[in-house]
């Protein structure tokens, strides 16, 4: 992403520092009906960093991700307040929300292999954006499946149904699909839940490489995974963003809030 091509922000008082801020969240609150899932979160995510989010279940991590690509549009129960700026643009005021989503790749914990061939699964995003050339698609499909550590297992059966792969394979297929969008921002939500440890390690290595190409938000319930990968990490607890800091600081007792320490030390969660 070429930072210098930042257009005039569509907000008065646009921040000067926007250049290397990929995503700015201000006073974000999410509620479902009367239940608050997340309250008053403000944070900034820099370009080309891996931003970890840790926290126990029901901390609001998944809701947070869903609000970033405006999936709340499809859930009339979900209400989002506050501001999210993507590349300095307020995502609530975008004229083409689909363009935003095509720039953001998402991997949710429940793997979804679409009921089409493995090839078509990975070629879907490029095709949606108008790509038809078979040779170009072939390249993308192979590259994305390779990066998602799935190519070797499926290269001989690209025409079988993606929805009939095993859970772990579907998870990697989902990752490959997210990568096929060539996203500016990749959001991973507990991606390793259905994947074996060896494959998890392989994907983690890929994520470190991908950092050069995109910004990554990594939601994980594995504290050590955040430590291995994330540059900075936020700790969410029961709808509150308790702490944000350099990952190493969180793990070396430089926490500001005792609860963070308790969680990392495994005293709850």
């Amino acid at each position, binding site marked *: 992403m070429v930072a210098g091509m930042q257009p005039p922000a569509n907000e008065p008082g646009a921040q000067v520092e926007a250049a290397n801020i990929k995503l700015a969240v201000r006073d974000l609150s999410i509620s479902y009906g009367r239940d608050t899932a997340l309250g008053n979160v403000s944070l900034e995510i820099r370009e080309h960093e891996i931003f970890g989010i840790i926290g126990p279940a029901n901390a609001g991590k998944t809701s947070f991700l869903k609000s970033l690509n405006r999936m709340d549009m499809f859930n009339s129960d979900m209400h989002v307040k506050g501001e999210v700026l993507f590349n300095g643009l307020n995502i609530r005021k975008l004229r083409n929300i689909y363009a935003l989503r*095509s*720039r953001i790749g998402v991997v949710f914990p*429940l793997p979804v292999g679409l009921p089409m061939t493995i090839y078509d699964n990975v070629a879907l*995003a490029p095709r949606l954006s108008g790509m038809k050339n078979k040779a170009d698609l072939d390249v993308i499909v192979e590259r994305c499946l390779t990066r998602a550590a799935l190519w070797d297992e499926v290269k001989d059966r690209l025409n079988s149904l993606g*929805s009939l792969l095993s859970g772990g394979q579907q998870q990697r297929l989902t990752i490959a699909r997210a990568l096929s969008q060539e996203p500016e921002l990749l959001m991973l939500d507990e991606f390793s839940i259905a994947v074996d440890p060896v494959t998890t390690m392989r994907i983690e290595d890929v994520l470190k490489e991908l950092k050069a190409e995109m910004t990554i938000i990594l939601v994980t319930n594995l504290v050590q995974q955040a430590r291995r990968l994330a540059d900075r990490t936020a700790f969410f607890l029961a709808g509150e963003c308790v702490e944000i800091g350099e990952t190493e600081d969180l793990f070396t007792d430089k926490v500001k809030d005792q609860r963070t320490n308790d969680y990392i030390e495994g005293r709850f969660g």
Partner: protein
Amino acid sequence: MFETSTLNARNQQVQRLVRILFLMMTLFLIVPVLIILGTLVVKGSSVISIDFLFTSPTEGMTAGGIFPALLGTVFLVAVDLVIAIPIGISAAIYLSEYAGNNWLTRVINLAIINLAGVPSIVHALFGLGAFVLFFGFGTSILAASLTLAIMTLPLVIVASKESMQAVPQAFREASWNMGATRWQTIRRVVLPNAIPGILTGLILEISRTAGETAPIMFTGAVFFTPFLPQGIFDQTMAMPLHLFVVATQVPGVPEDLPYGVALMLIALVLFMNALSIAFRAWLRGKKKW
């Protein structure tokens, strides 16, 4: 102890009796109809031959075949499908993919139920008033097929809607997450997986349309015409009306002739139905997720 076991034994007996009673009721409902259908087959099959299928009625409809009626029904069904498919499927897409849980959706569902429940003769009156007279299509295949399509629309809508709703929401969300528009998601993810179910509904639609009499009586089908239909503005003969005519309107028809017509009509309708059932069973065995 002793008491309990006699009670159990009595219960068992009641149970068995009740079961037999309900089985009898089932058989009372089904067996007579099967006997009747058997009679139709026995009496009708002597009439049916290649000639019967491919010649026109002769001698004041007391002899000859049913070709114009057969062809007319094919025409009516074909035009009906051209009308019912786009309207029915888009209504189904709306209900499955767009409609919220609000008053409009309730009104639409109520309208669909009413469209299915209004007597066929009222549909005929509507077709006459609207298509034949008001829109000036005259008594024609077009007017008759429009009437049939509107009458049988609920069938297409309900079958298509159900097969679209059977596509898991997670697939749509995955597609939206990639930046697909609603329409792109419908076209690339929902429809391809719903099409088999929609087809099942369409085969039923054909079966239903082919057998309807009242809606076409005053809108496009005629008792007899020496001409085969050339286009959608022509009148035509049709199988169900032809059965009505040879059974009630023509003097001196040989006793077995109407049985032949009835058998052909029922064979046509039940064949399409059986096809749809078989297709459905085949689909059930072919899981895609």
